[in-house]
């Protein structure tokens, strides 16, 4: 499935191809022609991570609120399932997902009949993979945030006639907002970086399912250090901005 790698970028030197108006300085310093780099993996990763973060927020907030407040059957089971991806090796997780969501599995068939195509080895599968990293992270952070909301505030809202949904939307969520926002940014960053699960269920199809992490692996495998450096530098910059964002957001007032 790889590797046309060398075909979709050119590496400095005497290459006579048309130069796009890319930063010439970078090119001069690193010898890497950024304009010729295929940035598809970056856009794909950003898109996958964004969708995964939104999906995970929905799943994570609902589960976290239930875990923080509910006394229901299967609570421990839900909690264990949501923690499992943290301790399970990504390849194992990816393998099981491949079995579970593959074209011949019941879930895979349902997906195919609804969406008209298989899930595995599509970019949507990369979203699923990313969710498995983002959800546990969000659940843990959001649960701690919900549990730190003064239960008396929620009871006060109830005694003022608020339904459970209104309590959640107007009291619990706004008061937990800051921690949850930080967790969402964190989850976004984590979603950008999945490798193991993505490669198992989404594969490494350049221009279709090749995310940043996979592309970096690919570049290293094909001995393209400059490309690997460029992509890795972008990831590092993203990671640092995420940390900076969490830090500055966290130092503002608590709500």
């Amino acid at each position, binding site marked *: 499935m790889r590797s046309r790698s060398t075909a979709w970028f050119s590496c400095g030197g005497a290459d006579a191809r048309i130069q796009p108006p890319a930063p010439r300085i970078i090119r001069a310093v690193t010898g890497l022609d950024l304009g010729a780099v295929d940035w598809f993996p970056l856009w794909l990763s950003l898109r996958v991570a964004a969708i995964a973060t939104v999906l995970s927020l929905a799943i994570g907030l609902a589960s976290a609120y239930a875990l923080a407040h509910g006394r229901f059957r299967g609570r421990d089971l839900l909690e264990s399932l949501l923690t499992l991806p943290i301790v399970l090796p990504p390849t194992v997780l990816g393998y099981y997902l491949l079995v579970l969501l593959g074209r011949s599995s019941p879930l895979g068939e349902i997906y195919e009949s609804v969406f008209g195509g298989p899930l595995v080895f599509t970019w949507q599968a990369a979203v699923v993979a990313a969710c498995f990293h983002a959800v546990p992270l969000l659940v843990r952070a959001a649960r701690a945030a919900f549990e730190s909301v*003064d239960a*008396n*505030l929620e009871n*006060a*809202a*109830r*005694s*003022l006639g608020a339904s459970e949904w209104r309590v959640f939307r107007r009291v619990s969520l706004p*008061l937990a907002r800051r921690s949850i926002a930080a967790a969402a940014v964190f989850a976004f960053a984590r979603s950008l970086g999945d490798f193991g699960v993505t490669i198992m269920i989404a594969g490494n199809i350049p221009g279709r399912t090749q995310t940043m992490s996979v592309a970096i692996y690919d570049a290293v495998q094909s001995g393209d250090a400059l490309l690997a450096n460029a992509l890795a530098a972008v990831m590092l910059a993203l990671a640092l901005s995420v940390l900076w964002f969490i830090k500055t957001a966290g130092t503002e007032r608590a*709500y």
Partner: protein
Amino acid sequence: MLEARIEKGFAERSGSAAFDLSVELAVGDGVTALFGPSGAGKTLTLAAIAGFVRPAGGRISLNGRVLFDSESGVDEPARNRRCGYLFQNDTLFPHMSVRENLEFAGHGLDSAELHRRVEEAIERFRLGRFAARRPEQISGGERRRSAIARTLIRRPELLLMDEPAQGLDVGLRRELYCTIEQVRREYRVPTIVVTHNLDEAFSLADHMLLYSGGRIIQHGSPREIYNRPGSAEAARLLGIDAVFDGEAKGVDEAAGLTRLQTSEFAIEAAFVAVNPGERVSFCIRAEGVVAVPRNGSIPERHAAVRLRRARQEAEQVRLDFVENLSAVVTRETWAEAQGAEDWTVEIPVEAVWVFPDGRGGR
């Protein structure tokens, strides 16, 4: 009218002993105080009525509406109970202004009515100056007024207040009592106040339920309970330490007297129907005891006692004697006594109270 029978038990856990609440109460108009030491189940009672805690058994009804019934499985959620709840800490929503807090409570009203009620509350409770501010930006007294105003927006049928004066200084406490008085006058909503402060119960309540160890051991007006505690336990909860066990020596119905004998002393109390030889327990109220510094001989009807300690209070001095008796003297008497350790006391019949529950027991 609230009628409640509440049963709830907690098994022993690390850090807290087993506890079991079993109370039955009926609360009508005016202010009812739940008085008792911490951990007696007062707040738990309130939370069960409000619907924050589900009792293991019992029945709660408010104005004929069943809020909870373990037998028929009724358990109205808190939002439908029409009980206003004032928490120890104000629980104003910190992310909303005072006005938004009031508006939150009026959810579901049509907007004209909501506006009318919010404006009315702002005016009545003098919130106008800071209605646009967040709770963190206003003072403790202002927060307390805002929180009370918020509970009234929905026109609750019952108001529940958990230690409302907690953490307020003396001035704010008085202001709070005025506000509660105002609520009682203007809204006429039956109110239950949890308190472990006897003065607070006296200033606020028409009716008092005395809590101890998850039970209600006595009820009545605060004055009634204070003057006629039903048992040695009740007396101790009311701060009366001079509790004695003894035996009835005889009764003199004509003179209206009962003679009591403990292992230490003999004393006369007002007439109570006891048989000679019956065990009784009784208390001697400090306010009724006459104490004078010993000056040579012991006057008639006086007994010699020895001072253990003197406690200065705002208007008077409370003397505790080695004999487990207490007396209250004026500041002048105390000043003249110049720290004397030997005193004599006279115990008039009115100062002695024989517990109805103490008779024949022990």
